[in-house]
């Protein structure tokens, strides 16, 4: 198996090698700027690597409270098809809450939720799934006593009459996994319990993309993985975006973020402090944004 981009550029972050459309405003692209730009017809500047202009996911002014604790303040977030958008932030910054708002698990209290440009209401996980938004949770949620095919189709089994159509499901499972260039599994009829952490992650991701989904949110996919497995999962993440999906990647690992993402969205204490192109920022700037909410011209206005 060759790494996805390995042949051409030796696994360099895409955004860096392909480069990005120039941002006249320099690196600064803070929350307020973003709002103004989007409304002011500056959307062309956002054009993601020649893909469509409309973001797959576009959230604006999202507020979310749990009881008296306000977790998200006026958060804006968008994810473009064909791109990996990394969502970073320290513990408690609101990443998970934002993901839950996106997935309809805890709908936002206030704010605008646009999907492919249309305003939508996502009140439950089912609504999200219907739109084509899939979330791969950190704890994967796989049944260890079932095999890969059974897990991929869990809750959405193919039937032929009363009985399950095992043959069709197995064929689809194999082609989906091959489409993700997953070649490390001996059999699609292996029980999940026999798989390694990376393979389980792959199965969970494959389950998310099996359904023609348009947005895939991955919550810390490489958190518990070794080096080689992390590499594999990141390749799959990149491949998903290359296939035209909007991928949202939550990660604490800056190396991973810079390796695969096209954009980085940084949350700090429940506020979106910056959404920037990965190519335009440095490792240090992002760390500063995460830890203090400000980095030079980026971040919160003081």
């Amino acid at each position, binding site marked *: 198996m060759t790494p996805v981009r390995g042949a051409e550029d030796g*696994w360099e972050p895409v955004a860096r090698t392909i480069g990005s459309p120039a941002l006249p405003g320099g690196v600064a692209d803070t929350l307020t700027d973003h709002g103004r730009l989007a409304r002011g017809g500056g959307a062309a500047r956002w054009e993601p690597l020649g893909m469509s202009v409309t973001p797959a996911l576009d959230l604006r002014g999202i507020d979310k409270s749990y009881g008296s604790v306000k977790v998200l303040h006026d958060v804006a977030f968008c994810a473009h098809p064909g791109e990996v958008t990394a969502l970073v932030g320290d513990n408690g910054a609101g990443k998970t809450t934002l993901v839950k708002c996106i997935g309809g698990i805890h709908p936002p209290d206030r704010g605008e939720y646009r999907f492919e440009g249309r305003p939508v209401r996502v009140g439950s996980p089912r609504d999200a*799934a219907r739109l084509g938004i899939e979330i791969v949770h950190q704890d994967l949620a796989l*049944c260890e006593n079932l095999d890969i095919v059974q897990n991929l189709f869990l*809750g959405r089994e193919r039937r032929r009459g009363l009985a399950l159509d095992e043959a069709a499901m*197995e064929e689809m499972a194999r082609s989906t*996994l091959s489409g993700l260039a997953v070649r490390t599994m001996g*059999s*699609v009829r292996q029980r999940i319990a026999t798989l390694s952490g990376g393979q389980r992650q792959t199965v969970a991701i494959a389950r998310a993309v099996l359904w023609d989904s348009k947005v895939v949110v991955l919550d810390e996919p490489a958190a518990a993985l070794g080096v080689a497995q992390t590499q594999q999962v990141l390749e799959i993440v990149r491949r998903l975006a290359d296939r035209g999906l909007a991928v949202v990647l939550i990660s604490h690992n800056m190396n991973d973020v810079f390796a695969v993402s096209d954009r980085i969205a940084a949350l700090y204490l429940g506020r979106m402090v910056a959404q920037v192109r990965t190519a335009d920022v440095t490792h240090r700037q992002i760390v500063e944004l995460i830890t203090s909410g400000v980095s030079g011209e980026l971040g919160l206005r003081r």
Partner: protein
Amino acid sequence: MSTDIPEGREAAVMKLADSDFAGDRREHDMRSAALDYLNKIKAGELGALPAILGLISLVVLFTALKPDTFLSKANLANLSTQAMPITILAMGLVFVLLLGEIDLSAGVASGLCAAVLAKLITDAGQPWYVAVISGVAIGIVIGTAIGWLVSVLRIPSFVVTLAFFLGLQGITLRLIGEGGTVPVRDDVIVALSNTNMPIWLGWLLAALCTAGYTATQLLRWRRQRVRNLHSRPLQFVLAQCAVVATALLGCTHVLSQDRAVSPLVFLGGIPWGVPLVGVLLIVCTFVLGRTAYGRHIYAVGGNAEAARRAGINVTRIRISVFMIGSGLAAISGIVAASRLNSVATDAGGGNTLLYAVGAAVIGGTSLFGGRGKARDAVLGGLVIAIIENGLGLLGTKAYLSFLITGLVLLLAASMDALARRRRSAAGR
């Protein structure tokens, strides 16, 4: 800042892994298939092996201890009717155990349903089908109540069914009257355990079942090969078919012999209850193995949270398995009533439930949920029936037979727990 891995090393990692679904395409010869099977056993995937070994060793043991009586034709026929109620009760419990729950009230529920049936037939003069439908309906109502308490109020099933275990006994007692017995004289009900099929019909059914089983297995194998799917080696499929055919035809042969004590009359054939168990086995196997509902039961038993996130209505699944459990318990009660020709106040009490749980676990159903098949109930039911029958023949004292049955249950549960540890150690 990138996560570069030197090209060569990554390639090495890839080569180590069994890649490209090779396992699905690998051509199996007998040797590799046998090795695979051995590895599975070593890793704790015992399947039906313990039950089959148990069956064989028990038969050898009791034949050695009671050479003339145990293997006599009359006793073997007796064994088949003895195993029926245990098997049906255990089959219902398999559904409950698959979720990792327990139904301690299944035994007394079967007793109550049988009491209702007996009362309706004997006292109210209702036809058998009305009585059977009412009995099973009451079983389903009991199951619904248990399921609701367990899945909506989230009371542990152990506690709910313990309460039902006591409460239902009270209802049976009230219904039948203290110390009383209600006779069951309806021809159809009595026939289940006491009348045999004509010999030709027995052979016909056995032949049909054998042919049907073999055809299904071979057709599935061929379909998997044609579409290039994961398939088991042909030798294995054939061996399995041979074992099933031997068992089916062998039992038919034994039960078709004349077992009458007097040479003047002919007594032989398969008891009518056996095809009932067969039908239940086929239906339950289909539901668990081939339908989405069955798949969801395994999923909830394996990881309820994952099932919920996959959009499965976990509450509904939980309630439904208790309904199936108690519904099958009702049928088991009716078969037991047929065998005894009556229903007493202690019907389904005593060690009925422990026998059934033991049967399911000996057969290979896990007490931890997520693993088990309908056939486990049949294999385990036979093992338990042989123990009960053999100890009876030996004239074992009551205290000893309690001790032995308790030990067997404990042994089965330990085996389940050990196999589970083995599996997690082997990453299965």
